[in-house]
């Protein structure tokens, strides 16, 4: 059985790793979506006793929703747009890191 929090933290770390490389902006977008969905739904195969992380904390839920909205702007439907990603990534990265820290506590 998977550890929900550890799994979500790993997904968020993968987002951070992709975001540092402009050539990986396409992957960063997918990794971010994967991480946010895992935070909302929990991972597939989640232990019966676990709940999705957003259900455990109002602050987490608020941060996830905020990041989802920001990601929508950052990830235009038609282009990897690494220029915008580089410019706005520092804010996204800070929020992703904050989410990971919140999960780790």
């Amino acid at each position, binding site marked *: 059985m998977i550890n929900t929090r550890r799994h979500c933290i790993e997904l968020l770390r993968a987002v951070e790793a992709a975001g540092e490389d402009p050539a*990986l902006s396409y992957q960063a977008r997918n990794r971010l*979506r994967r991480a946010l969905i895992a935070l909302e739904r929990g991972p597939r195969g989640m232990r019966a006793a676990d709940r999705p992380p957003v259900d455990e904390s109002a602050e987490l839920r608020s941060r996830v929703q905020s990041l989802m909205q920001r990601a929508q702007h950052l990830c235009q439907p038609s282009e990897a747009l690494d220029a915008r990603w580089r410019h706005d990534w520092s804010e996204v990265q800070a929020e992703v890191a904050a989410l990971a820290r919140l999960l780790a506590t």
Partner: protein
Amino acid sequence: MDLEALSHDYEIWLYGSRARGDADHRSDTDLLVIGDHPGGLQQATASAAWPRPVVSFYNWDELRRMWSYGSLFLDHVRREGRPLRRCHAYPERFSTYLATLPPFERARRDLDGFRLALDEGEASIAGHGWADVELQMLATVARHAAILGCYCIGEAAFGRLRPFEIWGEAAAWDIDDTRSLALGSVSYRFTPLGAPKWMTLEIGANRWLALVRRLLDEMEDAVDQYEATLHRAA
């Protein structure tokens, strides 16, 4: 010169299926807004003239960067877009960008990115990821890959199915395989996440994923030849 007015100046272009004339009940309205002030974006999204507007907003600096590498998105607008509103100060500004768009420089980088996205998506499905989420993301990968493939072989195409059809024909695919790849991509992209229909859609996922991988594998040669052509021309 009224700098305030200039800073609020913007262009709006229609592209996608409504510009092509093949929109259906599933079609959004694809709008491109270019400007240095979000007022243009707000105007476009507030317009009641178009059903389900999906607005891509870029400032002129971003646009210039996209032009510099021959953005496929700009190529799409160049081929099929229609101006709805031009800048007042420099009405030919965007048109000039489109008319002078250089060849796309990032084919190899994009193909490598698509392959990595497929690898990660498949690993996630095999692990603790959610198939509907992964398949929906990979459906966009597949479509972008088909668009890139068609561009590289000199038969640029956009739209929901056409890029797959053109690639399938060029690569001599069995018609059933082309249809499975194309229709699977459409189903995965347009089925709402979490909908009961996903239980059925996931049944054919393995075959669809194999077709996506085949598409990417076959594109290796096309991208190599395209980039060789670019280097010879440089």
